[in-house]
């Protein structure tokens, strides 16, 4: 075996000759052994910078939410904007209430529909299976503007007044594909013989569904549900088209804040919302890989 110094000397010698193409196999090994010290450093640097890039704007808003003054000139620490957020922004909290109602309702329905469909698609081969898979994929990739506009035109064509109901329908539609994919991913890890055992032991399809399948894939269902809640709470573009008077959601309210004059209350709100996001992501920590895969 060569000692460390030996490799150094050797590879130094090699590197001087490295312009000459054919190098012997041990020479290549030696050179790479040396390179491995800082191997992957480029990709790690890019990753670090990217994470910094993703967090920097958020950090700036959070820091300035504690600024006493209004602008971006630091003027001393204050919790004034938080006080205004929690005690002086009634409209904001009304819109938050609307958002919560819609989020849980549409997440609930999309979880129910998506879970059933995922079970069907995962275990059975039937006519229309490809249709189901394709159709569940499209809303995920079409730009939000298109989904929003098509829904707006659809609702006005069938004379449904815009409001909470139309937002609920639209949110269920764009949450469904994600729940479907999350549950599908969970089903892939599922041991199919359990179902067979249940059937062999005389369980009906309904009993199998509620006593065996659903409990077994509960983590997948719950994470799908939480993701649907997050996406519904987050959506602005689609909601923008299908909302009517009196159905302002939180993102719509934030939009009007951003568009028509920035109040630092929005910085305070940002911090609260980032904390909320972190909380949800923490709840879903075991499913982050599935979430990444469904994107």
């Amino acid at each position, binding site marked *: 075996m060569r000692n460390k110094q030996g490799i150094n000397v050797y590879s130094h010698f090699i590197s001087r000759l490295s312009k000459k193409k054919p190098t012997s196999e041990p020479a290549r090994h030696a050179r790479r052994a040396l390179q491995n010290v800082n191997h992957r450093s480029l990709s790690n640097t890019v*990753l670090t910078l990217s994470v910094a890039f993703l967090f920097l*704007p958020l950090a700036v808003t959070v820091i300035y939410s504690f600024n006493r003054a209004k602008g971006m000139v630091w003027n001393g620490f204050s919790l004034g904007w938080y006080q205004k957020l929690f005690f002086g922004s009634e409209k904001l909290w009304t819109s938050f209430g609307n958002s919560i109602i819609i989020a849980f309702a549409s997440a609930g329905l999309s979880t129910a529909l998506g879970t059933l469909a995922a079970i069907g698609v995962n275990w059975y081969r039937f006519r229309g*299976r490809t249709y*189901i898979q394709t*159709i569940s994929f499209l809303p995920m990739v079409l730009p939000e503007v298109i989904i929003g506009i098509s829904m707006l035109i659809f609702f006005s064509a069938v004379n449904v007044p815009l409001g909470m109901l139309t937002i609920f329908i639209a949110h269920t539609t764009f949450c*469904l594909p994600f729940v479907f994919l999350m549950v599908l991913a969970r089903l892939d890890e599922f041991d199919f013989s359990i179902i067979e055992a249940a059937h062999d032991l005389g369980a009906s399809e309904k009993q199998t569904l509620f006593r065996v399948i659903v409990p077994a894939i509960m983590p997948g269902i719950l994470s799908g549900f939480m993701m649907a809640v997050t996406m519904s709470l987050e959506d602005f573009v689609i909601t923008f088209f299908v909302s009517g008077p009196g159905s302002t959601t939180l993102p719509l309210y934030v939009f009007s804040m951003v568009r028509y004059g920035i109040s630092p209350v929005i910085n305070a709100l940002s911090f609260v919302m980032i904390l909320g996001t972190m909380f949800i992501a923490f709840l879903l920590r075991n499913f982050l890989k599935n979430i990444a895969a469904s994107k």
Partner: protein
Amino acid sequence: MSRQKLLASRNYGIPYSFPMGIWFSLFFLLPIGIIITYSFMKKGLHGGVLWQPTLDAYAQMLNPSYGRLFIRTLQVTFISTVLSIAIALPCGYAMARSKMQTLLLFLIIIPFWTNSLIRINAWIAILGNEGFINETLRKIGLIHESLPLLYNQSAVILVLVYMYLPYAILPIFTAMDKFDFSLLEAARDLGATKPQSMFKVLLPNVRSGIVTAIIFTFIPIFGAYTVPLLVGGKDSYMIGNIVVDQVTKVRNWPLASAFSMIITVVSTAGVLWMMGTSAREAARSKAALGKQDGAL
């Protein structure tokens, strides 16, 4: 196998999948169908359409100003997508080889899930005339007049990359995570240079992830609305903004529908390409490994 046996005895596929299929047909396909129909109709006076088939909307689209807008949209989309993918590739690689994957995913997903308007607002607070950068530079005396960092094309591209970078990183990470990195070692042992091992071994194996990443950045950026509206100037309007203006302000629904058609056709083509790629990929790996699993 047990699966086949069950398939033979009873098949509940349709009743299970039926509700979701109906929902999508009613609230996704039908609205898209209506848009397609409307794009061939005559414009109504106050929104809506008159039921007279015409190609007016498509003729209006031939207006050169729309042509310029379309090209600019493609340019911005192309630049932002290429930047996102170029950044996402090393990121996905580093994440896949990292021992702290959950933490890193957490770090990528948090900004990703934070409300998009909150993130746009953060950039306005940083780049604006009275924003963080300008105020800081003024304070240390480097500038007196504000730098015009916001409301231009570069700001739009910067913020678009910021918004859609996670969309690019996540699928690339997923694909790289499944890659067997000892193959890289093998390639190097067999005499490949580092770039060779990357381009000839790693990238072809994560191709489906890269395609997914391109689709998930290109399509939403192509239809972007909020970012050009809030951080762009009048000259950085994109096709999404025109569509929305046609719907809400001008109320020319056939024209808006025709524009939507274009975006939909471009997106659907992308999806078909992606599904084709993953199907081919699946077929190839199935042939290679003799594995039997057709699930998506």
